[in-house]
């Protein structure tokens, strides 16, 4: 509870439940009040984060108010506590106990005896409560109702209709929380069943939550079906590596193999939800493309498997005394990013390090150092906001849990949302967002407002300055929400050319001296380092000799990035075979997220630590390998373990000296000739961490080129046609979707099947030619 909440006087009511008095805030449901006393009333449809439904009737209790009893038992999940109420649950009232037993008997009449083949068996609320609140023997002798089973609700969610107890948790979730009402209850009476709309598939980014909250085995996940029993699984707490929302996850493993991931319970962040990408995109861990042994390029020009000492010696020989750049990538844990940062400064003696493996700008780098390091905005600010501005940020695609938070406030109290997106996407329609051409058009912001800036702001000159200006002039809170999980941690660790660990500016001599004494080194490099694109250019014109690369896909940076790496000495720390490992001179395999411990800083800058789940002796965290490499080079960084790194980061602390000032940039005039291509990524696309999971890919949105009605008319295309988008580099051919966008703009997804913008066109936004195919 925050201090503001604590001072608000809450009206309370008192009641007696099973002979014990309880005082709760007015409006509290009987079932919640009973929980406070430690009394568990059986329930199926009740869920604390969903609106009360009273669908299953399992929670019947005996209620009387001021001595007047209700004639029949009442559902405790829909009735709020009132003064003078006396409640008797199944523990003290034979009537309530008998009523619950009767309801259980009704629910079990048509419930098949699937327990041996049902995934829920062993962790099933129906199984458990049939034991605690049901009859010991069945009296039912008729034929059970059967349906054909299972049916695919989507490629990743399967439905066994005969197991369903019609609690409506799944339909309420998709309507109230996700805003994707593609699933509903059809028919009536005994034939009532969960169904999908015929012409709208269940394409929700949050469908996995319906599997998690289903109180029976009616909804199951395709990828986990028949794979294990609860008692087989070893669970560890983990943090999601897919985006910067910062979800708490639980990873379940069997015999060293990740079988499923579930949303963890963190009320301050993801509540109990997570997105399908976080839940199901983990097949990359067991992919055949994983690298498990070091590789060294031999005299014959081919990569050969090598021992660790050989590979470390080869990497050290290629890096020692050379001018080296470091591309760390945005997917590192805070500890690993710190390892890269310290390695660059101490072992390589350079500030040429950048974590940004995406389109970026110098304006952004200054913004990260001067503004982002001080941001304190959290999810609670979104909950309390009077206006949320989305600046180059598409929450449903780029940070889905942030979307859920905003959507909840939009539905609950009509929160105003404005977005500068060029396209009215499904996500912004759900938020009823007002689309504006530029941030200058937005009025009425107050200190209660929140401006959420996405990483794509770096692609438009002056966009970050405009957002900063808007927050300065109105007092609105700022937040910068990158797509990747490791970016905020990389900033804090100083894996960028103008910052040292703990937000110390490179240009500040006192900050450097502070760090020198902490690290026990004589000097630290003084000049701000190159950015990612400058490092790549320097490698190409040989002002740098070698490069150390973490988890980076060069196609995320630019179409030429891979070519710029071809003629240089490349040391790659990777989990899988990629375009970079194919051209690397030394490949050092590293542990992926469940194989190591560490922490991610989410967009709020708050750490979520996670434990190691799988012990694989061949795989080590990046920081451990960098430490060994630094020892071999004779310039030790002394970070032998993740724990030691965490301790060192904590002991360094945050810089409290002078901060750099953000110098605003002017915005560039928009080019107006021909068509302008705009793009962002879908949540589910061709991203490298989603590979190998066909069920997940089955619910990815189809790539379409969005054009306005006027544009469509001028090109002579209709909904069933395709267009060819081209420039001098190449072309993309896509079916069109008409409407929701301004004239002379064309929007395509950035990295989806059939629409990979950077490889095909060489940029992420700019002027293109469009023609009907």
């Amino acid at each position, binding site marked *: 509870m925050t201090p503001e909440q604590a001072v608000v006087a809450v009206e309370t009511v008192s009641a007696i439940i099973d002979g014990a008095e309880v005082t709760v805030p007015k409006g509290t449901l009987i079932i919640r009040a009973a929980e406070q006393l430690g009394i568990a009333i059986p329930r199926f449809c009740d869920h604390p984060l969903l609106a009360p439904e009273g669908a299953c009737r399992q929670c019947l209790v005996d209620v009387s108010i001021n001595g007047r009893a209700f004639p029949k038992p009442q559902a405790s999940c829909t009735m709020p506590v009132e003064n003078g109420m006396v409640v008797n649950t199944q523990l003290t009232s034979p009537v309530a106990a008998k009523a619950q037993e009767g309801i259980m008997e009704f629910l079990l009449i048509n419930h098949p005896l699937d327990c*041996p*083949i049902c995934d829920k*068996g*062993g962790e099933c609320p129906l199984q458990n409560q049939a034991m605690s609140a049901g009859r010991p023997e069945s009296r039912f002798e008729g034929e059970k109702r059967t349906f054909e089973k*299972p049916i695919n609700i989507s490629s990743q969610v399967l439905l066994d209709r005969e197991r369903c107890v019609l609690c409506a948790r799944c339909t309420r979730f998709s309507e109230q929380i996700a805003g994707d009402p593609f699933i509903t209850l059809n028919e009536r009476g005994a034939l009532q069943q969960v169904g999908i709309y015929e012409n709208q598939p269940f394409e929700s980014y949050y469908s996995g939550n319906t599997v998690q909250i289903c109180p029976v085995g009616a909804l199951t996940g395709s990828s986990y*079906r*028949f*794979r294990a029993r609860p008692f087989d699984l070893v669970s560890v707490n983990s943090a999601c590596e897919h985006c910067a929302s910062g979800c708490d996850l639980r990873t379940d493993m069997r015999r060293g193999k990740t079988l499923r991931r579930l949303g963890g319970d963190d009320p301050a962040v993801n509540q109990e939800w997570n997105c399908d990408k976080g839940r199901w995109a983990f097949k990359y861990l067991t992919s055949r493309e994983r690298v498990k042994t070091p590789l060294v390029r031999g005299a014959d020009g081919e990569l050969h498997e090598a021992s660790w000492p050989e590979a470390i010696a080869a990497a050290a020989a290629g890096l020692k005394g050379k001018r080296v750049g470091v591309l760390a990538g945005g997917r590192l844990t805070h500890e690993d990013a710190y390892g890269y940062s310290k390695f660059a400064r101490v072992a390589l003696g350079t500030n040429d390090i950048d974590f940004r493996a995406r389109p970026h700008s110098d304006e952004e780098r200054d913004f990260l150092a001067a503004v982002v390091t001080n941001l304190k905005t959290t999810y609670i600010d979104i909950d309390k906001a009077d206006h949320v501005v989305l600046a180059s940020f598409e929450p449903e695609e780029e940070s889905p849990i942030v979307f859920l938070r905003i959507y909840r406030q939009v539905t609950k109290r009509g929160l105003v949302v404005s977005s500068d997106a060029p396209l009215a996407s499904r996500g912004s329609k759900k938020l009823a967002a007002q689309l504006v051409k530029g941030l200058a058009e937005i009025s009425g912001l107050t200190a209660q407002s929140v401006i959420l800036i996405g990483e794509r702001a770096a692609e438009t000159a002056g966009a970050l300055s405009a957002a900063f200006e808007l927050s300065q002039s109105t007092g609105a809170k700022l937040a910068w929400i990158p797509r990747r999980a490791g970016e905020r941690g990389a900033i804090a660790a100083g894996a960028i050319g103008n910052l040292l660990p703990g937000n110390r500016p490179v240009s500040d001599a006192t900050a450097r001296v502070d760090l020198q004494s902490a690290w026990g080194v004589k000097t630290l490099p003084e000049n701000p380092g190159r950015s990612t694109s400058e490092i790549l250019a320097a490698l190409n014109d040989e002002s740098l000799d070698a490069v150390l690369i973490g988890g980076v896909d060069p196609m995320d940076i630019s179409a030429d990035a891979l070519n710029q790496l071809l003629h240089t000495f490349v040391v790659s720390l990777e989990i899988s075979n990629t375009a970079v490992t194919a051209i690397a001179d030394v490949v050092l395999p590293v542990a992926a997220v469940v194989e190591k411990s560490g922490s991610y800083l989410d967009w709020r800058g708050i750490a979520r630590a996670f434990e190691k789940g799988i012990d694989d002796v061949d795989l080590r965290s990046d920081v451990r390998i960098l430490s060994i490499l630094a020892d071999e080079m004779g310039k030790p960084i002394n970070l032998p373990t993740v724990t030691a790194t965490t301790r060192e980061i904590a002991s360094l602390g945050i810089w409290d000296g002078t901060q750099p000032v953000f110098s605003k940039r002017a915005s560039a005039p928009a080019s107006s000739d021909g068509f302008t291509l705009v793009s962002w990524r879908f949540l589910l696309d061709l991203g490298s961490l989603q590979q190998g999971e066909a069920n997940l890919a089955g619910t990815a949105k189809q790539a379409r080129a969005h054009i306005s009605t006027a544009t469509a008319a001028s090109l002579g295309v209709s909904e069933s046609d395709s267009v060819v988008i081209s420039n001098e580099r190449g072309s993309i051919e896509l079916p069109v979707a008409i409407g929701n966008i301004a004239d002379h703009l064309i929007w395509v997804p950035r990295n989806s099947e059939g629409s990979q913008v950077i490889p095909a066109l060489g940029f992420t936004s700019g002027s293109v030619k469009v023609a009907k195919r």
Partner: protein
Amino acid sequence: MADEAKSFSQQLLGFWVTFATMFKKVNTVQYPEVKEPTAERFHGRHQLNRYEDGLEKCIGCELCAWACPADAIYVEGADNTQEERFSPGERFGQVYQINYLRCVFCGLCIEACPTRALTMTNEYELADDDRAKLIFEKDDLLAPLRQGMIAPPHPMYPDSSHLNYYKGEITGSHPSQAREEQK
């Protein structure tokens, strides 16, 4: 002196048990040349049974593994597909291992089995010279194919469902169930 005589006679008395035993029926069995049948319900090596058409009864539910007090059983379930069907219904046991170094032959597993897939035979010769050989795989445990059975994978009996199997209504295989090379 008298005491010594008494002591000697008592020693003879002691040997009387030995002497009398020489004329009793001998219990020794000349194992392994001679093997006597076990008691009818002796708990020996497990067996994974089949339906009369050869499909496996095991559905990979892991209840045996759950019931096992010695953690000797390891099971992995998997989906039957149209092309490869091993058992009636949706699910079959893809991996089935019993570790006879751990098994205590208590029989809780066969009691837990919901389809009577797992039963125990009377076979007791379970010694070997290698620990790895004492982890029995599914192939070692599956009942042999009897007359009229077809080795899975193959489809279910024509026009039947898993319920016909559970009710014992399938009494043999149908020629259409055999794969091309088996026909």
